[in-house]
C-alpha cells in the first residue's frame, strides 16, 4: 500500500524542515502560567483565592511597614510622627522601641560595660562548633573562623571592649585560623576547653574556678591511664571517676582559694538574675543541646539493651519525661528540687533549668535515635559481631555512625524544639526574650500598647536561628548521603 502511494504522489520532500518554535501558548511565561497556575478550573480558583489573600496581606501591612518610625521616645510620639507624615488614620510600625530597648532583648540586665563578654563567648561558640560541624575541612573552617574574626573585630569594638581582652581574643582567633591551615584536627582541643571558657566569660569570678573544675577531668584521665595496666579498664575507669568526684567535692574550693591567692585573675562576677533575653535563650539552648545528645544516645542504647534492669530504667525515664509537659519539669526545677537535695543546698536557677531541659531533650532524642537504631538492617549488627568487635566498638564504629545519620533530620528538629522551648523559662521567673523582656517593655508607660513590633523582632530572630539549623541539617543529610538513588 505504501509503495503504490509513494508512486502516485508528485512531490516528496527530500530535506528536513527546520524545527519550528512551539506555539505561543506552549512556551515561555505563558506555558508556565498555564501549567502552574491555570491548568484546571480548581487550580484557577485556587490561584484567584491565593492572589486575593496575598493582595489583602500586602495592602493591609505594606503601609504599616513603609510608615515605620525609627526615632521616637514613646509610642505616642511614634503615632504623632506617622500621622504627620502619612496623614491622619495611617498606621505605622514603631521600631523606635527596638532602637531604644534592643539591648534588653539581647542581654537582659547584663551590665553594659561587660557586654563584650557575652559577645566574645557567642563569637567563640562558632569557633568551638566549627571543628565539630566541618571536621577537617580546611576551606569551611577558614571561612567560619574568618567570619568569627570579622564579627568579633566589629562587635567588640562597638561594645567598647577594654584593650587587653580585645587583643587577647583577636590573638586567639588569629591563632586558631593559623592552626586551621596547618592541623585542622587539633582545633577540637579548643572545643574541649570552650565550656569552661564560656562559663568564666559569662558568669565571671575567678579564672581558677573553671580551670580547677576542668582539672577534675584531667585527674580522671590520669588515674584511668595510670591504673588501667594495673587493675584493668573498667575498674580503672571507676577509680578515676571516684577520684575526680572526690576532687570536685573536697579539693575544689581549697584549690581555687590557694590559686586565686597566688594569682588573683578575675572578671567582675555577674548574677544569674541579670541574664536575660537571647543571651539566656542561647545559653540554655546550646548547653541543653550539647549535653542532651550524649545522654540521649546512652538512653537509646539502654532501651535497646538486652539487660532487663537497664532497659526498664531507660524506658521508665523516657516515658515519664515524654509524658509530662516541659512546664511541669521547669516547675520541678524551681519548686521541687529543694525537696530532693540535701537540706541547705541551693544552686543556681539557670543551672537547675538547664539540667531539666537537658533531661527533657534527652528523652526525646533517645526515641529519635532508637528509630535510627531500629531502621538499621539486622545484618549490620551481625556483621559487627562477626568481626569480633566488642559492644562499644561495634556501636562506635558500625552502628551509631549509621543510626545517627539516619536520624539527623529528627535530631535537628528536636534541637529546634529545645531552642524554641527555652522561652518557657519565663514561667519560673527567668527573663526570656519573648515573655520576660517583652512584658517589661510593654509595662513601660512609654511603650504601653505596643504589640506587633516586639513580637515581630523576637520572632524573626528565632526564625533565623531555627531555620538556619534546619537548613544545616539538610546540608548535612546531603553531604552524608551514601546511597545511590
Amino acid at each position, binding site marked *: 500500500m505504501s509503495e503504490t502511494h509513494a508512486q502516485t504522489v508528485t512531490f516528496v520532500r527530500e530535506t528536513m524542515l527546520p524545527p519550528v518554535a512551539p506555539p505561543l501558548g506552549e512556551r515561555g511565561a505563558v506555558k508556565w502560567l498555564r501549567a502552574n497556575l491555570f491548568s484546571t478550573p480548581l487550580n484557577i480558583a485556587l490561584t484567584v483565592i491565593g492572589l486575593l489573600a496575598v493582595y489583602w496581606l500586602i495592602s493591609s501591612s505594606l503601609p504599616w511597614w513603609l510608615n515605620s518610625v525609627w526615632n521616637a521616645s514613646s509610642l505616642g510620639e511614634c503615632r504623632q510622627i506617622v500621622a504627620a507624615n502619612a496623614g491622619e488614620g495611617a498606621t505605622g510600625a514603631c521600631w523606635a522601641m527596638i532602637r531604644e530597648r534592643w539591648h534588653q532583648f539581647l542581654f537582659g540586665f547584663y551590665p553594659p560595660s561587660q557586654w563584650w563578654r557575652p559577645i566574645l563567648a557567642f563569637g567563640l561558640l562558632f569557633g568551638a562548633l566549627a571543628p565539630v560541624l566541618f571536621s577537617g575541612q580546611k576551606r569551611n573552617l577558614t571561612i567560619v573562623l574568618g567570619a568569627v574574626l570579622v564579627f568579633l573585630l566589629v562587635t567588640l569594638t562597638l561594645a567598647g571592649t577594654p584593650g587587653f581582652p580585645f587583643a587577647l581574643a583577636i590573638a586567639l582567633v588569629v591563632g586558631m585560623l593559623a592552626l586551621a591551615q596547618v592541623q585542622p584536627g587539633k582545633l577540637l582541643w579548643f572545643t574541649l576547653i570552650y565550656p569552661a571558657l564560656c562559663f568564666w566569660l559569662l558568669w565571671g569570678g575567678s579564672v581558677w574556678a573553671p580551670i580547677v573544675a576542668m582539672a577534675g577531668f584531667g585527674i580522671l584521665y590520669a588515674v584511668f591511664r595510670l591504673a588501667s595496666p594495673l587493675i584493668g579498664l573498667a575498674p580503672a575507669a571507676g577509680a578515676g571517676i571516684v577520684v575526680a568526684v572526690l576532687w570536685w567535692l573536697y579539693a575544689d574550693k581549697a584549690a581555687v582559694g590557694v590559686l586565686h591567692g597566688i594569682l588573683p585573675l578575675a572578671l567582675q562576677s555577674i548574677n544569674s538574675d541579670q541574664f536575660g533575653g537571647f543571651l539566656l535563650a542561647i545559653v540554655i539552648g546550646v548547653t541543653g543541646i550539647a549535653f542532651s545528645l550524649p545522654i540521649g544516645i546512652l538512653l537509646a542504647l539502654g532501651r535497646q539493651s538486652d539487660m532487663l534492669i537497664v532497659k526498664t530504667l531507660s524506658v521508665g525515664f523516657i516515658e515519664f519525661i515524654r509524658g509530662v509537659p516541659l512546664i511541669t519539669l521547669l516547675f520541678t526545677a524551681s519548686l521541687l528540687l529543694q525537696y*530532693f537535695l540535701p537540706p541547705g543546698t541551693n544552686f543556681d536557677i539557670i543551672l537547675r533549668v538547664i539540667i531539666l531541659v537537658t533531661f527533657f531533650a534527652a528523652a526525646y532524642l533517645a526515641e529519635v535515635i532508637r528509630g535510627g537504631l531500629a531502621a538499621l538492617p539486622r545484618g549490620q549488627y551481625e556483621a559487627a559481631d562477626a568481626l569480633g568487635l566488642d559492644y562499644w566498638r561495634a556501636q562506635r564504629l558500625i552502628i551509631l555512625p549509621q543510626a545517627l545519620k539516619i536520624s539527623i533530620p529528627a535530631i535537628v528538629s528536636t534541637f529546634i524544639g529545645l531552642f524554641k522551648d527555652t522561652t518557657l523559662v519565663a514561667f519560673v521567673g527567668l527573663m526570656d526574650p519573648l515573655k520576660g523582656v517583652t512584658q517589661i517593655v510593654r509595662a513601660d508607660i512609654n511603650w504601653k500598647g505596643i504589640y506587633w513590633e516586639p513580637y515581630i523582632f523576637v520572632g524573626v530572630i528565632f526564625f533565623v536561628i531555627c531555620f538556619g539549623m534546619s537548613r544545616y541539617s539538610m546540608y548535612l543529610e546531603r553531604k552524608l548521603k551514601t546511597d545511590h538513588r
Partner: protein
Amino acid sequence: MAMATDAPKDGFRLSMLIYDTRYRSYTIQLVVLVLFALAVAWLLNNTAQNLAARGKVFNFGFLWQRAGYDIGQQLIPYNNDDNHFRALLVGLINTLVVAFFGCIFATILGVTVGVLRLSRNWLVSRMMTVYVETFRNVPLLLWILLSYVILSETTPLPKDFKVTDEMIAAGEAPKASMILFDTVAVTNRGTNVPAPLFERGLGTLDLGFMSLNLTFWAVVAVIAGSVFVNRRMLASARATQEATGVRPVTWWKSILVLFAPVIVLLVAMGFHLDVPVLKGFNFQGGILVAHSFTALLIALTLYTAAFIAEIVRAGIMAISRGQSEAAFALGLRPNRTMSLIILPQALRVIIPPLISQYLNLTKNTSLGIAVSYLDLRGTLGGITLNQTGRELECMLLMMLIYLAISLSISTVMNLYNKSVQLKAR
C-alpha cells in the same frame, strides 16, 4: 572426632564477673540496680528531712478543703465554696476541652495545608510553604501571646456596638458590628456566642457525687444511635452489592437516618439559640468565651497544623509513583486512586507521628498559663499550690495526671494505628 570442644572447666574466678560475657551482664545490672536504689534512697531521705525541717507531712488531705477561688471557664458546676479536688476536675476538663478542639482543628487545617503544599499550583504551594516554615520555626509561646494581645487589645469595646437613635437619624453605622448574621460579638472582654437553650429540656439527674445533664446526653445518645444505624445500613448495602452486583441507593437514607432523629428531638425539646444582645454596657445572654481560651486554641491549632502538614506531605510523598500509575492503569479515577490506593498506604506512615503531635498539643495546653487560662496547671499546679503551699503533692499529682492523659491518648491512637497498618503475611 568432635570438632567442638567444651568451654574450659576452670574454677570460677572473681574476675570472670567482669571479663566473661556470660556473667558480665548480671554484674552490670546488679551495679546499676544498686546505684539506682542508692539514688532513690538518697532522694527519699533528703525529701523526708526537708519535709521534717519545714514541718510538713506528705498527704493529700488538702484536696478536700475549701478552694475559695473562682474559675472563669467551668464546664461542670463549680463555685469558690467547692473543694480543691473539684477545682482540679474543672481545670482538667478545661485542659481536655482545649486539647480536643485543638486536635480536631489542627488535623483539618494540617491535612488541607499538607495536600495544598503538594498541589501543582505554584502560588498556592509557595504560600503553604511560607505558612509552614513561619509557624514551625517560631516558638508556640509567641503565637499564644500574640493572638491573646491582638484579641484583647484590638477588638472593640462593648459600647462601640451601641446604635443610638441619633445615629439612626444621621444614618451613621456603629463603630463595631456583630458577625455571622448578628449572632457573634467579639469584644475586648471576650467572644459572645449564642447559647443553645431548650424550652422543654429533660433536666438534670443528680447522682450524688455528680449531676448529669440529661438533655445533653439525650442528644449524644440519639446521634450515636443514628451513626450506628447508618453504619449497619451501609454494611447491608455492601453485602447486597457483593451478593448481587447492584448497590442499593443509600444516600438519601443516610441523610434521613443521620439528621432526622436529632432534628425531631431538638424540635421536641424546644431548641432555640439564645443570641447575645447588647444591654447597657455589656452583652447579655449567650455564652461569653474568654479570650484566653480562644487565643490558646487559635495558637495551638495554627502551630500544630504546620507540623501536621509536614507529616501529611511526607506521608503522601512516601508512596511511590508506581502505586498511582498502577491505579491509573487499572482505570481508577483520580479521587478513587486517592481514597483506595494512596491514602490507605499513606496513613500507615502518617499515623505514628500524628499521634505524637496530638500528645505534644495536649502537653502544650499547659502554656495556657501565659494567658491565665485556668487549666489543670492553672488550678492544681497554680492557685491550689500557692494557697496550700503543698508543692510536692500538687506537682506529683499533676505530673501523674498528665502522664495518664498522655498514656491514654497514645494507647487509643496506637490501637487505631494497628487497625490501619498493613497486615503482614
